[in-house]
């Protein structure tokens, strides 16, 4: 009898988790087990995963508000990334250096994020039900528009403009004298002196924890509750006197701002700023990660973000070393593409009770 109940519970749990998620988790577990077998150092692997987690987690977090308010997966995240890039480059242009430039980057990017997010949110309110496709193309067209702007905005700082002509920003530039490591160096725990190849970027993780806590807290306030209700059943929310459009716009602004902060966090870890078409490459890893973490097109939580980012980044960092060592072929790139896009396709084909 007891066994029977637990079998039901297991099946329920399996169903809730979804098979793709389990397969990915199982695969990652397999990678961790195989890592020592193939001769790669487990501590190094763990360091890599944690590192990549700390870079990406905020970007994944940026998915949450929009999913909550029923706007679907935020394929328009490049908009937030652009706000972040504007903030970062302008902070440098204004002459800030070191960790201060990171703070200023966030400060400067905020009005852009609010502006972009506000416009984007109002657009999405006009096309309820078709958000995801439009979001994708809003991302694509805004990035290509900004490609022109990077060339036209009269940046002067020699360390970021093109070396020869002095006009237009470089494709990629290093942040060594600016905000590289602004968070990750803070309270860094380095176990290398003890002979263990483990480095924990405490600052970055704390920063993510702070933002994650803030989002979690927000979702527990009156407005946050309204946001969840809007996502869950917009008609119910409207009947309960909620201004659905306003809440949705707010969620989009939040997502966009988190996207901006997310890309800055990413850059401080990575150490470089990538411009032009690079923002487009931020979308899929973030979308895929939150889905792998257990979110659906209209439900997501902070734990989805943490689990998903760990799983996805684990997959991305571990496959190149472990699988390559195993079969002497680097299939990591292909696996990444299949897993991330397959996950999105899977999520899209799940039946949701109502399409807002």
């Amino acid at each position, binding site marked *: 009898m007891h066994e029977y109940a637990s079998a039901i519970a297991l099946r329920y749990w399996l169903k809730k988790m979804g098979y793709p998620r389990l397969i990915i988790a199982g695969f990652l577990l397999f990678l961790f087990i195989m890592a020592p077998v193939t001769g790669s150092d487990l501590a190094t692997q763990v360091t890599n995963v944690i590192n990549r987690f700390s870079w990406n987690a905020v970007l994944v977090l940026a998915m949450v508000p929009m999913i909550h308010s029923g706007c679907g997966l935020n394929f328009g995240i490049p908009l937030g990334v652009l706000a972040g890039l504007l903030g970062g480059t302008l902070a440098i242009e204004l002459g800030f250096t070191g960790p201060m430039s990171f703070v200023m980057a966030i400060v400067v990017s905020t009005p852009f994020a609010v502006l972009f997010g506000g416009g984007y949110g109002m*657009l999405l309110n006009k*096309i309820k*039900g078709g958000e995801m496709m*439009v979001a*994708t193309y*809003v991302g694509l067209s805004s990035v290509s528009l900004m490609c022109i702007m990077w060339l036209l905005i009269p940046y002067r700082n020699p360390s970021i403009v093109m070396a020869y002509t002095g006009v237009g920003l470089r494709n990629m530039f290093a942040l060594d004298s600016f905000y590289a490591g602004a968070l990750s160096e803070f309270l860094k725990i380095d176990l290398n002196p003890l002979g263990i190849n483990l480095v924990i970027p405490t600052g970055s993780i704390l920063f993510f924890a702070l933002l994650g806590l803030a989002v979690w807290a927000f979702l527990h306030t009156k407005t946050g509750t309204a946001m969840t209700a809007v996502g869950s059943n917009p008609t119910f929310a409207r009947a309960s006197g909620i201004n659905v459009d306003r809440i949705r716009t707010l969620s989009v602004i939040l997502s966009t701002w988190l996207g901006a902060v997310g890309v800055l966090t990413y850059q401080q870890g990575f150490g470089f700023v990538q411009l032009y078409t690079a923002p487009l490459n931020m979308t899929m890893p973030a979308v895929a990660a939150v889905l792998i973490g257990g979110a659906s097109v209209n439900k997501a939580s902070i734990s989805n973000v943490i689990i998903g980012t760990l799983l996805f980044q684990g997959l991305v960092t571990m496959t190149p070393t472990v699988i390559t060592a195993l079969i002497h072929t680097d299939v990591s790139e292909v696996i990444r*593409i299949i897993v991330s896009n397959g996950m999105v396709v899977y999520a899209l*084909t799940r039946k949701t009770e109502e399409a807002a």
Partner: protein
Amino acid sequence: MKLKKNFDGLDFLQNNLVPLMFIIICAVCIPLSGFSASYLINEIVTRMGRNIFLILSLLIPIMAGMGLNFGMTLGAMAGQVALIFVTDWQIWGIPGVVLAMILSVPVSVLLGLLCGKLMNMAKGREMILGYMMNYFVTGLYQLVVLYFMASIIPIRHASIRLPRGFGIRTTVNLANMRQCLDNEFAILYKGVKIPVLNFIIIGVMCLIIIWFRRTKLGQDMRAVGQDMEVAQAAGINVDRTRIISIIISTVFAGFGQIIYLQNIGNFPTYTAHSQIGMFCIAALLVGGASVEKASIGNVFLGVILFHTMFIVAPRAGVAITGDAMIGEYFRVFVSYGVITLALVMYEIKKRRARSQGGELLAQAQRARREGGAQS
């Protein structure tokens, strides 16, 4: 009466906003670019010959109410796989093209079936699903071409293998079938080469589409496209009809990609397909099509306008800003912008149709109420 006419004019403007915008862009950019008329016309005719077939493949899913088939890329990949084999077997010229088309069919059908089935599971989200399918199937394609070919799937010639022994090189050279269709019966007139055979193929394809609309299947697709529930109630197998429309589109996209690539003469193995869907869809929309309605006329107008913009934008960009990259980015921006605009307008229209219906009803009620009050 006058008011009504005004209204119509505004309506026309709204419905043809995108083509009109493009005509203006082209009108501004052509003189700035400084290209000669014969060069420009030659380029456009060539591009028409190679692109129209691909774009025609988009029409059938639109008819079936499945929107812009972003999944046409799947067909393009099938075409590329076929071309890789044909290249390896050293089949040249038109026979090579024909063989590649035949070989692409089973692959296209399989991918189309997969895509169609998934789209039936995501009704109302077909477009984003098709868009994501691109990337997903790109992964599968890479797995096959980069790892399976020449290891599991036999590839004879070292010249198309990667130096490491398996996988296909990043560029596949189609020198032996380069422009074989374009050159057949080609007419050179005042510096403009007209690829007659290409246009014959396109003409036949147009006839097929027109004919198809008059078949039972075409009629069913139109019915399904307009109202799935009514079609289902009338006994039409909706899911199957939708899958067939995607399969047809995928197969034609495969043919289209082969025609396209034989004109170019080589292709980057891993990226040739990636943007094909995007610019075909942009071209179709530029021609005045929308997500739910597209005609052969839209295809032709779209190709002409879109490619004119495409050819002249970089040079015009240089002329205006002095920077070549700006023109390049500009045309990319315009392509994406057009699709964004079309999608937004489609969604807004869908919503407006609903609310307008309500308003009309309310008005009628008011009138009736007043009438009722009098009697």
